[in-house]
């Protein structure tokens, strides 16, 4: 099984620790991982901005970089969703089809491909989980409150296995954080307000460590936490599962 690691552009540039934690975690789980050095980005930023035609070269580059692998694992539900859903505008060569099928969000890969039962990590903290919309509703990694009142999903299942952990019960379990790619600057007022409201929900319900499956949402939320000096530490799920402590 040939497994490639895809570290999204903004994680590569601004959150290398998330990339390192992802790599170390996969290695601990016995997965042999290759990091193709010519990788860049999945092409989502331009596409969400209304310029998916411009993204085609980025899509082609991504496919060229990753098509030889059986699995492409990435610590991002959003990039995974984009590749699966929106790589439909380039010619569907066997390579493109293979890439769209092989790409996995990290937790999905751990639970459904590696199929691990236990994570031997102590994490004695109150943890608030932010469900990123593309992971939750896009990839169906967690139940949606529009459809059922049962709050459950891949990430919370895995988190519950950690020793000493307590999960925050939020007032609104799956409201969007307001990042939304370019939305975070083009609709700055609403974007910021959505993020602020998420942080209030976490603070009211006792979150000490805020985590999630997408660094983009977390970057936005962390930006608000830092501006407000809120007593919350933001960590990506890969860092927690890798045994990093806040």
């Amino acid at each position, binding site marked *: 099984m040939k497994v490639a690691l895809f570290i999204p552009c903004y994680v590569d540039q601004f959150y290398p620790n998330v990339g390192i934690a992802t790599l170390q975690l996969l290695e601990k789980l016995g997965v042999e991982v290759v990091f193709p050095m010519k990788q860049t980005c999945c092409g989502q930023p331009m596409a969400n901005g209304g310029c998916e035609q411009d993204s085609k070269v980025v899509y082609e580059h991504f496919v060229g970089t990753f098509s030889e692998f059986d699995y492409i694992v990435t610590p991002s539900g959003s990039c995974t969703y984009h590749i699966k859903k929106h790589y439909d505008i380039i010619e569907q060569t066997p390579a493109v089809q293979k890439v769209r099928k092989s790409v996995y969000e990290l937790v999905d890969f751990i639970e459904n491909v590696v199929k691990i039962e236990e994570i031997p990590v102590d994490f004695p903290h109150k943890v608030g989980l932010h469900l990123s919309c593309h992971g939750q509703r896009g990839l169906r990694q967690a139940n949606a409150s529009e459809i059922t009142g049962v709050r459950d999903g891949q990430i919370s299942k895995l988190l519950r296995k950690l020793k000493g952990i307590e999960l925050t019960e939020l007032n609104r379990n799956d409201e969007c954080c307001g990042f939304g790619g370019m939305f975070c600057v083009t609709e700055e007022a609403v974007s910021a307000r959505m993020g602020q409201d998420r942080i209030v929900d976490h603070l009211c319900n006792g979150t000490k460590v805020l985590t999630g499956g997408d660094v983009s949402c977390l970057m936005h939320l962390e*930006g608000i936490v830092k501006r407000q000096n809120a007593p919350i530490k933001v960590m990506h799920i890969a860092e927690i599962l890798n045994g990093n402590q806040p």
Partner: protein
Amino acid sequence: MNHQNHPELAEAFNKDFERTTWHDETLWFVRQKRDKAVYPIPEFQDLRTLASEIKDHTLSNLDNYLIEFEQNAIKNGVKVHWAADAAEHNQIVMEIIKSSSKVEGRNPRLVKSKSMLTEECHLNGFLENNNIDVVDTDLGERIVQFRNEPPSHIVLPAIHLKKEDVGETFHVHLGTTKGEKDPQILTEAARQHLRGKFVAADVALTGVNFAIAETGSFVVCTNEGNADLGVNLAKVHIACMGIEKIIPKLHHLSVYTRLLARSATGQPITTYTSHFTKPAEGKEMHIVIVDNGRTQQLGRADFRASLKCIRCGACMNTCPVYRRSGGHSYDFTVPGPIGAILSPNIDLHKHKSLPFASTLCGSCSDVCPVKIDIHVQLYKWRQIVGQANELTAAKKWGMKGMAKVLSMPKVYDLSGKLARGALRILPHGLTHNQSMNPWAKARELPDAPKQSFKEWYEENRQ
């Protein structure tokens, strides 16, 4: 005409922090009521699928079903009119009113129950300019009519107003005591005021929630009973409907009545679900069937599913952007996510900011009782806006440049290194300058690390 785009109007809305909180929580409360009504129905998701499939089938055979509906309605003694656009619709309605209420010495009087179609056609202003007195009889509609505002929500037209605002409006228009804000007292004042209007009306106009091809009858859903009161008192009933309101058979109706009120307000069913088939003895009934851009939308493969909408408003209540920007920020008759996919069909240039007024979180699609893929259509409209050259030059060329960089690994690596270096060196006041960097108005930038992941990997693993 000059108009503001969604981000500007949304920013203005957000200036009042407390009111934004209140607006968000009020709409979220409605969303929660919807959840409480939906969760206990085990077959709710199957109902959504069924409703979606019936509408798909109907839209694929719309010409036949419209003709079937017309033939059956005519058999029932109803007069059927066809309007290609808003202007024709308004003209037809005006002529019916004028010909059926020739009263010397005063204007003809119309009472209306809620109809988003007539809002879309801007009927009220047209009729008033033609010396017809128009009274909206839905309480929320009457409030916004007094205030000369458009509705801010398709089910809850005055949801942007607090009881204090309504008190002030009623003080001015109905003479209630200044400062009176008790909802019961205000509602009673409106009730007494509207009674007089109902009794005096020559013509009653209603919308149509569902038109049944098989029977030629139509169904109007209200909570206030105002449609029924108007129609039963006036001599003439005009019902206005978009061509997409058709369902094939009467037994399909229950699928929609089970979904509509639960999705809209969390009620099992609207208080009144009134079936209209034929005029009462000595009375007239007219149906005006309107296109106004709908066939154009039907012809757009990616967007035709937007015509399945049953106007429940659930996508507005669930939308985190709508809740924090208000219905008026959309500047279109139908606001919120569904409005953002309907409006570009009408005027792409004017409404080009609406497909971007979303994080594409997908909550709208999951809440939609007829399973319209709203967030997918938002994404697709964005591409059309982009291709129609409606993006700013800065954005357009910025995107092209970014795509180039991201397709060339060496250039990407170097650009990232330079950007991080600059962020580390430049003073906080400059990197977080709020007029240059909107991100920094409410957020800190992430710390720029010395090494990218790729650089770390190169150093440690290769």
